[in-house]
């Protein structure tokens, strides 16, 4: 089982310009651990002082915010595309 993970430009400095990885992680916590294993430099940037993933980092699975799918409890499916977006932009008033 493998999912495709797309990384944002803001991560590139810490990922040696890698934009995309394939991961066998079963869920979000495993994926974060996988990312930190591959890119040790990313770890201190991904997590705040409390050790938690920073609030501004958003994960989407096939166009849906992972928080609507159960967040950490969601089990990745074969072929899922995971999109990481830091600090979602936009915003009107």
């Amino acid at each position: 089982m493998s999912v495709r993970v797309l990384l944002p430009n803001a991560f590139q400095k810490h990922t040696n310009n890698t934009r995309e990885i394939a991961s066998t992680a079963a869920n979000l916590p495993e994926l974060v651990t996988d990312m930190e294993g591959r890119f040790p430099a990313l770890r201190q940037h991904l997590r705040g002082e409390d050790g938690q993933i920073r609030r501004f980092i958003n994960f989407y699975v096939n166009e849906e915010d992972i928080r609507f799918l159960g967040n950490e409890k969601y089990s990745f499916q074969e072929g899922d595309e995971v999109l990481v977006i830091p600090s979602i932009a936009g915003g009107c008033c």
Partner: protein
Amino acid sequence: MTIAYELRCRGCGKSYGIQPLSICDECFSPLEVAFDLEYARTRFTRESISNGPLNMWRYRALLPVADSYAPQTPAGMTPLVKAPRLGAHIGARNLYLKNDAVCMPTLSFKDRVVAVALANAQAFGFTTVGCSSTGNLANAVAAQAARLGLKTFILVPSDLEPAKILNTQVYGATLVRVAGNYDHVNRLSSQIADRYNWGFVNVNLRPYYAEGSKTVGFEIAEQLGWRLPDNLVCPMAGGSLITKIRKAFSELVALGLVEDKPVRFFGAQATGCSPISTAVKNDTDVIEPQRPNTIARSLAIGNPADGAYASRAIRASGGWAEDVSDVEIVSAIQELAETEGIFAETAGGVTTAVTARLYAHGRIHPDELTVSCITGNGLKTTDCLSGAYERSEPIRPRMADFEAFMEEHTTESAEASPEFSQVLALAGESYVR
């Protein structure tokens, strides 16, 4: 050379100079423009402002543009009017409306932010600009980009109101309708901005764009005779505007243009998309995203980018946030139009209904000076009123027919009460002289 402003991370404080960037590469928090207020002290004075143009560029010393920039997109300086008739309906005795329903050129407060964003797009050398939008931003980007000769790609949710779609296409913009809600559109925009070298108004130009919102706050203070209100009621979508009005007030206090005083900030959302008001009610700045379902499409952002900051600002000010149903939104649009002659879009219905509730619940005292922000024009969202009014049968062009019509339709008409007339006359003083 003194640098008037720079980009700074809102999380870790890292400086980024002046470049098209919106995210910190260390902690991934959003970036914000920070001004050197000491440098601004000699340039941003009541006198320099009154000598400036009668539009938002009179505040340019606290807007992120180069000293050499020659403004080409006048926007802002909209009326601040006292609202005695609406006030009488909802129990307010000192209520003002900041009416950005008549902001030029596209009838929403977005004209302000886009003016600043596109000035920066030009400075950075972008020839193509884009945005994701719930409508008002699309209109503003399309119109002002046309004026500046920039190419535009504008992404909107496919279910957007027809008037907002037409008001984008008429300027020659390339409109990309996306099957999804604003949050889907927004996420796609972040990806596009990573891939294409465009000036994305609400992605890589976002820190600059957001500063344009401060002009709402600057104008309110100036129009009140250089003083701050007791309370401010503001609609919230991404949560940016309310935080920027607060920033504007803080800058005015820091530079000595107004006397320092506590201002309470109140946020308004539709119940069908209320992630920020929910956070305020739960006394937290943790925003739980929602799937929007409301007629107030311009506020329908389920994952608000500035939600945490908005919630924090509201609670720190001693304010509150409320949300109202779609039925209340439509009633409030009608009530505002019938009492004050202002036709607001659905977001204005949200703000008006929430303002009424804040008085009804005793959160705002009737005598406190309160400003309610109307951010967009009702002509853009007429579909929410479809079926609200009967189309009457025409009469023949005969006096007898008219008299019969009168007999049928004579109701108690609105009377010009002397009390209201006096208040309205005084409100004229609040326009910029």
